[in-house]
């Protein structure tokens, strides 16, 4: 973990993230794209907390992502014009739903686990889609904007400055990444690895497998909820597509594309995926085919992801 090369790579990654608003325009991007990279990166890393470290595949994380997005949007629209409150409510909503449904979901494993997560995810999609009067239905939730943030007398004008919002998102990513890294290094994280490597053995050792899986599911969903609130704030908008299954699939893709056996891999994968999607969808109507093709090619030829590719065959 603390090899000098890895430290250098992490430092380089963070240098790039910290300076992104300065150079992204020069290479043909825009600040909002940078923010989207960070938000999606957080979502992919959150998913990978579950996928990469417990080996259980959730194909339904978009549900909690989108639920948090709606929580934030609806708080800002109906309750109070406060970004901080919106984020709080969003994360709480997503995490609570994950805690409740997670108790049912962790009863299953493998393919079954994946199917149950997908199917439960759809409930929220239909609620958002159908409950027109509150959620705005298919047209999405509009009529609200993110508000400036006040920290102990210092005002961060995320409302009008895209750059300020970028750094807010980046700060959330930094805090979340630090929290996840700490959790993974704790006895709790080691237990997750033990479950991933051999669940039966972990069970025989007296570890509470279900409780650990449930907890890691909830933690993972809490961070994906944070990403969801940021996503809503970024767009000043949210619609049912934020919680549909294809969004979940994209999260999984980002994690795999970057490399799900490495901590920062999903962030790299998200960056590549988001930029590529942005580029392709502005150049052709058939972006779905291109994205689909990427899925197929990654599965067939780069199953260990970009970072897995860099590291070579030996060390993963």
């Amino acid at each position, binding site marked *: 973990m603390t090899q000098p090369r890895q430290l250098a790579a992490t430092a380089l990654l963070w240098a790039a993230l910290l300076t992104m608003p300065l150079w992204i325009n020069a290479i043909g991007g825009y600040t909002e794209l940078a923010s989207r990279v960070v938000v999606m990166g957080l979502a992919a890393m959150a998913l990978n907390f579950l996928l990469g470290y417990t080996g259980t595949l959730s194909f339904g994380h978009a549900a909690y992502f989108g639920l948090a997005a709606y929580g934030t949007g609806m708080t800002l629209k109906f309750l109070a014009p406060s970004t901080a409150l919106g984020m709080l409510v969003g994360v709480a909503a997503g995490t609570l739903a994950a805690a409740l449904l997670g108790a049912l979901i962790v009863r299953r494993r493998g*393919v079954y686990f994946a199917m149950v997560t997908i199917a439960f995810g759809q409930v929220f999609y239909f609620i958002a889609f159908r409950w027109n009067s509150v959620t705005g239905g298919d047209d999405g939730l509009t009529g609200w904007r993110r508000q400036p943030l006040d920290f102990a007398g210092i005002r961060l004008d995320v409302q009008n400055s895209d750059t300020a919002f970028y750094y807010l998102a980046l700060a959330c990513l930094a805090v979340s990444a630090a929290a996840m890294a700490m959790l993974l290094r704790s006895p709790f994280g080691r237990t997750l690895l033990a479950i991933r490597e051999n669940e039966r053995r972990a069970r025989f050792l007296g570890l509470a497998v279900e409780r650990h899986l449930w907890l890691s599911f909830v933690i993972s969903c809490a961070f994906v909820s944070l990403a969801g609130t940021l996503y809503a704030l970024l767009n000043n908008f949210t619609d049912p597509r934020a919680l549909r299954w294809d969004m979940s699939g994209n999260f999984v*893709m980002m994690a795999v594309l970057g490399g799900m056996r490495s901590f920062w891999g999903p962030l790299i994968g998200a960056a590549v995926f988001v930029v590529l999607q942005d580029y392709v969808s502005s150049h052709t109507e058939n972006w779905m085919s291109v994205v689909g093709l990427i899925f197929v090619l990654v599965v067939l030829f780069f199953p260990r992801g970009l970072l897995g590719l860099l590291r070579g065959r030996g060390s993963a």
Partner: protein
Amino acid sequence: MTQLILFNVFNGLITGAFYALMALGLSLILNLSGVINFAHGGFLALGAYLAYSLMPFVGFWGALLIAPLLTAALGLVVERLLIRRVYGRDPLYSLLLTFGLAYILEDLVRYVWGAQSLPYPIPGVLTQPLSRQFFFLTGYRLFMVALVALAVTALFLILGRTRLGMRIRAGTLDLETVGALGVNVRVLRNLNFGLGIYLAGLAGVLAAGMLGLQPTIGTSLIMPSFVAIIVGGLGSLPGTLLGGLLIGVASGLATVYLPSASEAIIYVMMGLVLLVRPRGLLGEEGRLQ
């Protein structure tokens, strides 16, 4: 009121029959090869649109016969070239692969046939209501139910009475042993995939006649099919059939009492099943865990 309930129960049965047809194909593939075929909806849409294009040349009945076969043939090719490579790997990869395929198929349909919905003409014989009081019993609906029943019976006969079906059932339990006994497992999985895709194609043609043609026709049917499998129980085909019909009727009944919940109710049912009987109604414990 009785009529309204009857109408919606009948409607639900039809929807359930679709779910079941689709879910049976998914189940076949999942049980033998451990692959959740996300692209199933894409194949369904393809079957529907192929039938649409064939109809001017071979008529309604010809299209009904040929389109599912063509879809199945394409399924055989896709299995050979792509799906086969992820057998035995983490389910993650088969999910992502078929997910990508689903994207490609939907886009392909949109590219070839356009994004607008198209009408799917059905013969006049089948559109007449059969009785004035039960106006909803059109010939086409009865015909659909009959055809689904026929297809399901045929499927169970194939599985129960033919050598291929016997091998599929044996392979579902222990593929390695089946291979060791001299059965060509690659061919078996290929044919099994084709059989599943045939059911998707057939469901597509039938759905087209009822719902019309849209590129998203498959995606809207695939999630309920997952639910049907989970409610019925993984690894049990009769369970899948039962699950499909049950959730169909449930969403039909929900339409009477709480229309806006007609979609969400099936997920509530799934939650209940997982809570009370995690293996599903007719599922075996420990399958595909």
